[in-house]
Structure formats: C-alpha cells, structure tokens
C-alpha cells in the first residue's frame, strides 16, 4: 500500500493538533486595506533608505496593502521581513497620561533617588524600549516562533512604534538582523512578563541562527508584571494587561484581536500572504507597546507618591509593603503613615493594617515605645486585631520595657483570641496554644516574684 494511502487511513491517530481555519478569525478583524488609519492617528512610513534601495518590487506580494499599513520591506540575504513604523506626537494622550509624562516620571525618579527595581533614575527616556512580542504558541519551547517583535520608544518630540514582522518562516535571519540593526542604542527593555516569556523566547529563536546574526544586546530589563501583581493582585480578578488597561489606565480597545488569537491569524496569513489577515495582530501589539508606556508612567507615579491624594490607600499600602520588602524602611514608614492618616476615623481595614505594619517596622527599628503606642492606639479603636499584635506587644513589654503586668495582659488577650480562632476553624493549634500558655505562666512567675 502506498504511504499516502496509509497516512490517510491512520489520520485519526496522526493529527491531534488544532486545525487552523480561516473562519477562526471573525470577519471584523480582517479589515479593509487602508482602514488602519481610520482612527485618525498619524501614520508615517519612514524606514531607512538603505533597505528601500535593496527592495525588489516584484518579489513582495501584497506590497500596496503593506504600504497602506505603513510597513516596508527589509531585505537581507535574499529574504525579506516587513518593518512597520507608526509615529505619535509626544503630546498624544494614551489612557490617563500623555506620552510626554514619561519624561516627568523619570525626573521624579532622579529626584527621589529611590533604589527600586522599576526606577528609571540615571536612565535616559530615549534609551528605553517598551517591548512586546507575538508568537506562534503559548507554551514556550524551541518550536514556538516569534513572528513579531514590537516596541515603542520616545525620540525627540515623538513616540515611535516599530514592528519587525516575520513575513515568512525562512526569514528569521532577516528578522533578527533588522531588529538588531535598530535597537543597538537602547539600554533597557520595559516589558510585561518579558522576563519569563518574551525575552527567553527571543533568545531561544536567536540561538538557532546565532552563527548568522550578531549577538543579542545585554539589555537591562524592567518587567512591569511583577509590579502590577504586587499592587493589584488583591484588587483585580487577574493581572492581564487588557484588564489593567481598563481598570487602571483608562485605555479602551476597540475591535481588538485577543492575544490568544494571534497564532491562528499568523497561520492564516502564511497561507494567503495577505497582510490584512494579520493587521489586527499588528494593531494589538502596537497598543500593547503603547500601553506599556502608560503603565510605566502610572506605576512610577504610584511608587513615587508618598501621600494618598493621588493614590488609593490600598495602592499606597502595597507600595509601602514593597519598599519594606526592599529594606527601605523610611519610605515604607512614610507611606504607612500616610495611609493611616487618610483613613483616620473611617475605620477601614487598610488603615488598621497600615498601623499594625507601622508598629512592626518601629519594632524592627527598636523604637519600642513608638511601636507599643501605635498598637495600643489600634487596640483602643479596633474591635478585632490579629493575635500576633497582642503577642508582639507582650514580647516588647516583657523583654524591652519590663512591664510584666502589661505583658501578661497582652499575652492573655492573645491566648483568648487564639482559642476563639481554633474553635471557629475547628482546628486545634496545640503547639501554639502550649507556647502561649508557657509565656503566660512565665510572666505570672515574674510578676509573683516582684510582688
């Protein structure tokens, strides 16, 4: 029997992969040529003249359509990729900020001279690449091809979005050549999950052709996902960029091709070579890299704010925790205080939490009296406090202030809270209860000896 017939017969056993069907991409994403411009945004096409010179017009299918999308071919060793470039004025607003405010926050970082992983102090605004990729799969691995390298950056009075698009899978050398040609002067990547996904994937694909292209630059890397998680994990159902855009950045996307559709759109494009099949993905990526600027401005503002006029108490509280984790206690204290002050009288949980955290920080700084007084303030005003607070208070009173009576009182409070919790949770914390009991006995002995 012929192999062909056998392959057909065994087909059911051989292919389990998702079929790539054109109908998987809804019509509205397959826009008409030229419609990219209907948003009224300025579109310019200014790819370097060197590449234009080498372009041979007959060999590029759908060239007019590409041109309408502001993309030009980049030709290298007989292969071409498409480079799309769109410019926006710095004064343009994207969500709640104007791009120009990037300069502002960088200055603010300089002034604050805070040591923080997202700090842009000592960095030039035009050395930052706000970077994002689109790939043929979501799982990593060598076979997951990066087909779009996109970034935005500021230059002079403009924001420039540039996208390097893999026009055919055999053009990866050209893709990386074109990318590396144009990113040499930049020092840092700003990404959203780029440390775990995008950049390793770029490295992976680059490794396959490492003998034919220059090395990848050793970029510094600010990954905004980490910061977003720290600030909003408890307040947003997920930390997807699109959700953050809506909830935090005031960016609304219309007719967006969701990221998970990108691979299917690309496979469709490969079959037809018609750029209209991929323009939705290009637009999606463009918005992603623009939103990265807005997100960076926003996160910076949150991190640099030290009072709650501009920031919600919850966010301020989370930034305080972040500074605390970084060991920058003064900055943390300043923010916890601001949270507590803004919540005075309102009795909100975040205000109480800030006071408790403040107490812990004072304790770490060995400011015993301050710690105790702040906790006592909590005890006086709050109906419920975690027993740890009483326990810590008891420790300070016993070991530092030698006030055994107070210590005993707090220890007993802690024990009774613990017991309440055990009965609520129907779980005996025997070891802990025993430790509490021991502390109480010891304190009673100390008191007895004094009497």
């Amino acid at each position, binding site marked *: *029997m012929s*192999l*062909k017939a*056998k*392959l057909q*017969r*065994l*087909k*059911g*056993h*051989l*292919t*389990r*992969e*998702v*079929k*790539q069907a054109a109908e998987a991409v809804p019509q509205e994403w397959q826009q008409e040529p030229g419609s990219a411009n209907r948003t009224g945004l300025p579109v310019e096409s200014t790819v370097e003249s060197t590449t234009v010179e080498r372009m041979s017009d007959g060999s590029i299918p759908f060239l007019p359509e590409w041109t309408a999308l502001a993309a030009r071919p980049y030709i290298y060793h007989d292969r071409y990729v498409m480079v799309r470039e769109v410019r926006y004025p710095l004064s343009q607003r994207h969500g709640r900020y104007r791009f120009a405010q990037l300069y502002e926050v960088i200055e603010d970082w300089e002034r604050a001279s805070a040591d923080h992983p997202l700090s842009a102090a000592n960095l030039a605004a035009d050395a930052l690449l706000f970077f994002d990729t689109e790939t*043929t*799969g*979501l*799982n*990593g*691995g*060598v*076979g*997951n*091809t990066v087909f779009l390298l996109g970034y935005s950056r500021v230059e002079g009075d403009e924001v420039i979005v540039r996208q390097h698009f893999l026009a*055919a*899978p*055999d053009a990866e050398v050209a893709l990386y050549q074109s990318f590396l040609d144009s990113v040499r002067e930049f020092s840092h990547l700003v990404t959203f999950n780029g440390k775990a996904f995008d950049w390793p994937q770029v*490295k*992976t*694909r680059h*490794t*396959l052709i490492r003998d034919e292209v220059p090395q990848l630059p050793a970029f510094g890397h600010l990954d905004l996902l980490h910061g977003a998680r720290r600030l909003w994990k408890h307040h947003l159902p997920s930390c997807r960029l699109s959700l953050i855009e809506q909830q935090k950045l005031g960016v609304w996307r219309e007719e967006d091709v969701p990221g998970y559709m990108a*691979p*299917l759109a690309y*496979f469709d494009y*490969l*079959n037809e070579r018609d750029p209209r099949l991929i323009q939705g993905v290009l637009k999606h990526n463009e918005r992603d890299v623009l939103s990265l600027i807005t997100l960076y401005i926003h996160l910076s503002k949150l991190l640099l704010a030290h009072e709650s006029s501009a920031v919600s108490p919850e966010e301020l509280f989370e930034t305080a925790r972040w500074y605390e984790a970084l060991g920058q206690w003064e900055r943390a204290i300043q923010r916890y205080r601001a949270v507590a002050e803004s919540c005075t009288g309102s009795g909100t949980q975040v205000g109480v939490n800030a006071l408790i955290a403040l107490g812990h920080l004072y304790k770490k700084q060995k400011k015993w009296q301050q710690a105790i007084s702040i906790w006592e303030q909590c005890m006086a005003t709050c109906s419920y406090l975690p027993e740890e607070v009483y326990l810590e208070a008891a420790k300070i009173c016993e070991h530092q202030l030698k006030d055994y009576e107070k210590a005993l009182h707090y220890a007993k409070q802690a024990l009774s809270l613990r017991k309440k919790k055990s009965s609520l949770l129907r779980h005996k914390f025997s070891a802990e209860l025993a430790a509490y009991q021991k502390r109480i006995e010891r304190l009673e002995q100390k008191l007895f000896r004094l009497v």
Partner: protein
Amino acid sequence: MKQKRQIAEVLERLKSDERFGKQIVHWQTIPPREARLAPFPDDLDQRIRQTLSKRGINSLYIHQATAYRLVREGKHIVAVTPTASGKSLCYHLPILQALAEEPQVRALYLFPTKALAQDQKSELVAWTDEMGLPIKTETYDGDTPASIRQVVRQAGSIVITNPDMLHSAILPHHTKWVSFFEHLRYVVIDELHTYRGVFGSHVANVIRRLKRICAFYGSSPQFICTSATIANPKELGERLTEEEMVLVDDNGAPSGRKHFLFYNPPVVNRQLNIRRSATLEARDVAAAFLTSGIQTILFARSRVRVEILLTYLQELIKKKVGAKTIQGYRGGYLPSQRRAIERGLRNGEILGVVSTNALELGVDIGQLQACVITGYPGSIASVWQQAGRAGRRQDESVVVLVGSSSPLDQYVLQHPEYFFGQSPEAARINPDNLIILVDHLKCAAFELPFREGERFGRAEVTEILQFLTDEQILHHARGKWFWMNESFPAHEISLRSASQENVVIIDISEQGNERVIGEMDRFSSLTLLHEEAIYLHQGVQYQVEKLDYAEKKAYVREVQVDYYTDANLAVQLKVLEQEESVGGEQVEYAYGEVSVHAMATIFKKIKFETHENIGSGPIHLPEEELHTNAAWISFRETLLTKMGKAEAERGLAGLAYVLKHVAPLFVMCDPQDLHVVAQRKAVHSGEPTIFLYDRYPGGIGLSEQVFQEMPTILAEAEKLICSCPCEKGCPSCTGASEEGEKELALTLLRAAWGGSLHVS
C-alpha cells in the same frame, strides 16, 4: 552464613514436603562461577585508580576492561552482563577518564526509570567526590527543582535522566542546553533490553531527535549501552541508535550457586486436566520462604494478580512478621510510593515484595534470596531477568517458576530443555511504525526545521512532511519545513502507553479529601475500570463508581468485598488491505492491515479463594477502534461443509486458543501485545480465518514476524496439543473441554500445514 544455611534448610524441607515435593518437576542447579580478571588499563587516571583501590577494587572484570578499551577507541558498544556483574563500571570508567582529561566533556545517562537514575547519581557522586575530580553529576527529571535546573543545564558534566524527560523537557528546549550539546561526547543507555516493542520504538525516535540536535550543535556522541541477556543485543542497540555497535559479552563476574525449580501445581480435575491456581500455589511457596525470614520477591503477571497476592500474603504473614513488611510494587503506583518501597527493600524493613515486571529493571534492591515467579512471564529473557532479582551478591539463591494451566506454561514446564537450552528471545522494535514515526517527526520539526532531502535517522520522510504540511501542522517555505502550530507536540505524546491519554484514578472515599491514587492506559481501563469493577491498589479494594471516559477519570470508593471482577472484550475485525500472502490449496497465510473494533461487554464477579462466579453485569462503554497489522490463516470455505459448521467453529476456537499462547513465544512479546481472533466467515473473504494482530495502532512488527514464522508456530502448536496428556482438550492446550475439541483443532492444524482434511 546463617542465611545460606536457611536457604538450604528450606529447600530441603520443600523437597521432602508431602505437598510441595512432588510438584517440583525440574530442579536445576546452576554452579557458581569464578571471576575472570584483568589489570587496570595503563592510561587510567591516578585519582580513579586510587579510589578504586581504596574500595578494594584492584583489577577489573574482563568485560569491564574490554568495554573501557573499546570506548577509548571511539567505538559504540553494547555490553551484555547479568545483574550484579559490575556493569555500571563499563560506562563510568571510560567517561570518568575522559572527564579527568578534559573537564568540558559532557555525558548523558539514560535510565528507563527515575528510581534507577537516583541510585546511579548517589553512587557516582560518592565516587567523584572521593576522586577529587571536578565532575558535576546531576539528575534532571520531573523532581528536579526549577531553581537548580539552570545550573544542571549549564554546568552538569554528567546529566542523568530518562527517555521521557529527554523527549518532553530537554530536546524541545535544546536552546537552553547549548553548551551541553556542543560538548556531548557520550550517551549511556542502560537497561537496553527494556527498550523493545512500542516503548523501544518510541525511544529509537527520541534518539534520532537527539542525534539531529547534536549534529546541529556540531557534536556526534558515542553510545554506550548495557543490556541483560537477550538474543540480539547488538542488533537492538544498532536499531535503537542507528550506529554500528561492538558487542561486549565476555562476562568476567563471579556468581553464586542458584537453584532453579520448576513447580507444576497439582491437577485437581484429571479429566479436564485443570490444575490448582498458580496464584494460590505461588502464594504458598512464597509463604514458606517468608515465614523462614528469607527475603523473597514474588512476581505476578498482572496488576490485579499483584493485588490479590498482596492481600493473601499480608493476611497470612500478619501474625508472624507484621503486615507492613510485605509490599506491592507495580506500574500504577505513584512515584513517591514506589520510592518508599525501594528504600524499604534496601534497608531490610520490607521482607517481601509482590511485583509486576516493573522490577525486572535493575533497581538495586539489595539481597533478595528467593524469587517466586507466578506463571511463565512469556519470554525466556523475562524469566532470567526476574530470576536475577535473587542472589545478586554471590550467595546461594533459589528461583521457583510456578506454572499455570495455560498451554505456554505447560509447554515450558514439561520441556525444561527448551528453557535451559534455547537462547533467550530477540527484542524487536519498529522505529518506522507510521504512528510513532509521525509523532516524533512532529517533535523533531518543532525542535529544528527540516531541510529538503533530509532524512530522519534512516527514515525517508519527505512524503510524511508533505502530509503534515497538507494538514497545516508544518509550513513549507523555500526548501524547508517549519513547525507552524500552536501546540507543543511532545506534551501530547507519551512514550510508555499505547493510547495517548491515561485514565486518572480518583479516590472519593472521604468527602473533601479526594485524591489521585493512580493512572491506567485507556485500553486497559475498558476492562479494569468500568463501573462496578473492583480496583485493587496496595491491597485495598476500591469499587469504581463512575468512569468518565470522555474526561479520562475514574472515581473509586473504598470497599471490602470477597471477590474481584473480570471483564470480557468483544472484538470485531476487518481486513483493510492484504499486503502479502502465501497460498496453498487448502489454506492461505497472509499479512496486511486491519481495523479492529473492541468493546467491553460484560463483567463477572469472581470469589477469592474458590474462584467461583458469583454474579455479572453489563458494561456500557464506547467502542475503541484500532488500525493495525495482522497475520492470518484462511481456510477454504469448503472446510465448513467437510467438517460441519459447528465442528469447524469449535476447531477454529481451539486452534486460536493454542496460537494465542504459542505465537508470543516465537516473536518475543508479552502475550498482551499480540491478540488472536477466530472468525468462521471473515468479512473480507467469507472464509474461516484466524487472525493474529498487533495491539498497538499501526503495528510494531509482531504480526509481520508471525507471518514469516507461521510454519514454525504451527509446528509448535501441533507439538503442544499432541503432548498434552488430557483426553479431549483442556485449558492447557485447546482451552475448552467439549468432546473432540482437541481432535478438531488438530484436524485444522493439519489442514493449515497444507495436508488434506481427514475427518474421522
């Protein structure tokens, strides 16, 4: 010394025991063997030399010296050595030497299981620490913490892993291993003999992928394989690696005296020639050893048997030694459970183990002194590997093979010269099984694009690449095929199980504490995890409450009942294409492609101890479809009129029964891998036909082998029927016991031989 005496004593008792004594039908004593030694090679590094000396090793066994020399000469080798013959030195020594000379050299060790990898790592680390060599030995498997994976990838000199991990985690991420692959000089394949059948065919393709990636990074590693005794180690090594191998089989290791007993259970029904259950007899033999404090391993052939024996023995031994000291060991257990058992065996906390052939592998479990095998495991090689579990340390040891009533067992027990005289079977793989090949071709394309004209190992693959392009999995551009799909192909392909997806078994006995206790391949689940089935796990009985076949989940609840369940599988078979045939007047042998539809029909509840049928019920599960290869024997339609329809049908059934047991003997496979179906009127020809088909989709070459060996197989089948002492057919020959069954089967056999029909 005390233990040696114990063994001799127990054997003496066994021999003179009224019940056991006369069932021992053969007693072979394998004499001890002296060591044959060779001096250390001249070029061996001083540090290695000293460490060996410190451990009391001042010379090598000759096979170790040969292996060292050949590897140093750049040859690929297969070393065939029995258990406990110091086989690991065959690869450690030349590799450590190379690393002592050039620290940047990298080596990859492949073990079939994680447990084996752990063992080897601790041994190697102890060695290299003592030698003071800057060698980093690391395991890389599912248990390796993410935090140290990067270190392993970049700095591991010797990376120990298993084929599954290589397949799904290393090769698809090869760009993270650049310097490892650039400097990869040795690939060790331990337990080569386990890479046969479907698993071996998969692994051969994983190695094609490995070699392709090595070539990309400019390396071309040497393969060092070790194998237990099989007929064709060199051929297997060459098929697996597609490199020319040199065989090292001059075993120089000493071995202790071994007693090999064939034990045939007593006949309980003379007319039907039915013997007492091998399971029960093996239990009693094992109990005799265990109660004397002799560490014993008991092998059973199926997971169910393991659990039944475990329940029996734990009950029996509880009073004397405590229930915890006997443990089960089989494939369905979770890794942590298995490792705990292996530890218990090594440190002696566990006295007995009941195992499926999972322990055929060379897990170092220390000094087991007795080995009881329940039923002939289907191949000579398997018997020797299971027997190798006893007496690894040169002590006296005993192996008891307890036969069942099956024709194959009876044949072996009654022909000890067959077992002791014949060389063990050959291990076969078929890396070009279309399904397996296509699976790995996808993985390979994911890892690196294919160039026009490129082969995949020895396989010519252009047509398949085109097929995958038509299916929109690959994209063809300018002479290259690129992976163009969202999926991660290696994650969808399992090297171990026939069907791609396993059924997960979930214990729901305790509300709020549901937990996964095991898994099973889909095909087995049809008959073992249907609703109401009794599923046994570590001696605990569970009843299946719900089998969610679509979601691949079986929900079980703990129960206590005095029965187990046994399910029937109804099979329909159609010939799709006949590829080869040899015709005679009366009969035709053929080979080709078939489609099989299997459906579980009913199950029976069978009482422990008495094995009586105490109830049954229907099974409602969808039909499984299988495309595979088959060999078949067709008789002329006239046979029906000559013999009579009913008689011909009974004859076919009887002959099929015999062939099912005899054929695996000649194609070296587990009887489970080759199925037999008889049809009075085959769909394709209308003729009476017996089919023997491969259980794996696409076939792995078993039925092709059957087709080629048909005359031998038929001759052996005839011998078996003729030499059976029963009168009219019994479970040890033709199966049923109706009048004339035996004669009918023999009549058909003669016809199959090309003789004319004689109906008496």
